[in-house]
């Protein structure tokens, strides 16, 4: 499934309204913010239709996935948005993660657990809040807000950079850092970022990670950022997105894709957006002198002009 989907779920007292644009969105946040009520309303609408008194407006079916037959339901469903409440223990299983892989559906997962086997975006972790009464005095208007909107003050002039990446992205930042006397090390994977912060002193540190898939790590990284003012998170979609977004590769189609990636990225083919951006960059640079390989950085990207264009586009770090 592709695209951004606006969802309205309402009854006489509550009005939920939000948009989902990636295959995985997470809802967490405070207790009593209406998460379970949202699921209950959706379940009633699904079971009873108009007779439920719940109105669901969306261009694709919105359904609740629960119970023992979840896998069977999923295997036979297409172009739907599935909401799953935290009571379903299958949420954090490998089996569920495997079922999402290649699925033609979007998923809205209600859980505070960190689902390490799913690559979800930092931008798609939400809380629910009441934004006031709606139209009349009876109805409460519920909206989603991004939980990780504050990831440390950026842009930052770092003394040390830690990259999630160990390949091309790391090579780029290491080369740039060496020229400027900045330390740069690779955590060798996002799951090692938390451990990499152990032993950090007072130096200004910037973590560079793929925002498109860093979601499961945010709970533990965020507490470090909040408590240590010298730790900053720079979370572009991915290193490949940085290159695409820089304008170094002059292609009209790239600009169009980056304006609304959700209209191009099919959940069936790409579990998370950074995989699409990697493929797009590889496709657009082909076998030319610009040819991009994730495993080893093409020296073209370290030529003065290339480097300047890429660095100028990076808004999270001051080099």
């Amino acid at each position, binding site marked *: 499934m592709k695209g951004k989907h606006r969802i309205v779920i309402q009854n006489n007292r509550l009005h939920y309204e939000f948009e989902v644009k990636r295959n995985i969105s997470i809802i967490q946040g405070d207790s009593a*913010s209406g998460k379970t009520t949202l699921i209950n309303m959706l379940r009633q609408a699904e079971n009873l239709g108009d007779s439920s008194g719940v109105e669901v407006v969306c261009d694709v079916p919105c359904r609740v996935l629960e119970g023992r037959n979840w896998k069977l339901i999923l295997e036979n469903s297409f172009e739907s948005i599935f909401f799953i409440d935290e009571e379903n223990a299958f949420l954090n299983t490998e089996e569920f993660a495997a079922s999402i892989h290649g699925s033609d559906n979007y998923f809205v997962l209600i859980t*505070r657990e960190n689902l390490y086997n799913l690559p979800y975006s930092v931008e798609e972790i939400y809380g629910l809040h009441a934004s006031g009464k709606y139209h009349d005095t009876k109805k409460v208007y519920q909206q989603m807000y991004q939980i990780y909107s504050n990831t440390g003050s950026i842009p930052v002039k770092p003394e040390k950079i830690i990259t999630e990446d160990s390949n091309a992205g790391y090579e780029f930042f290491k080369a740039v850092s060496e020229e400027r006397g900045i330390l740069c090390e690779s955590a060798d994977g996002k799951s090692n970022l*938390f451990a990499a912060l152990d032993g950090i002193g007072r130096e200004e540190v910037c973590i560079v990670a793929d925002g498109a898939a860093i979601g499961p790590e945010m709970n*533990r990284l965020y507490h470090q950022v909040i408590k240590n003012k010298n730790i900053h998170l720079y979370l572009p979609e991915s290193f490949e997105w940085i290159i695409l977004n820089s304008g170094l590769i002059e292609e009209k189609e790239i600009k169009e894709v980056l304006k609304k990636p959700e209209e191009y990225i099919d959940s069936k083919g790409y579990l998370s957006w950074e995989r699409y951006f990697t493929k797009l960059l590889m496709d657009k640079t082909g076998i030319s002198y610009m040819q991009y390989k994730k495993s080893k950085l093409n020296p073209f990207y370290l030529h003065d002009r290339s480097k300047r264009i890429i660095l100028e586009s990076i808004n999270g770090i001051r080099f």
Partner: protein
Amino acid sequence: MLSIYLGKMDGAIYHPPTYFDNQYEDEWITEELSVCMIRDVDHSEVVSARLIESPVLGPISTKELSGGVKTLMLMAFDGTGKVFNASVCGDNCAKWILEIANRKDLTINLRHIMDFGEGGFEARILNTGDMVHDMLGFARIAGKYV
């Protein structure tokens, strides 16, 4: 005294709100502690053991309280010695977990890093035996297990 087991825990009640619906006692609801927790977390008033007044939903039953406040009541009043998954509780329940742990020995299971706030608090991490005294210390250990 608060004890915390981090990560998946055998025998812990994974979804306490469901357990609450099937096991709660009417008298828990009208306890002063419950009345205060329901007012603070759910912004609702206890009318009687079987009736709550919610500003959003109107008159509701006990079973329509939030999962967070149901879990807090289990922590406070359940006498079976079961350990409850506190990751169904939002950060707005954290101060009440500390309050309950001030009144009795309380063991909880956490599968995410709950924010216990800016102030100091005392908790024993059962995975390591360490005592933690604030969020910085707690998050450093918890990040290894959740």
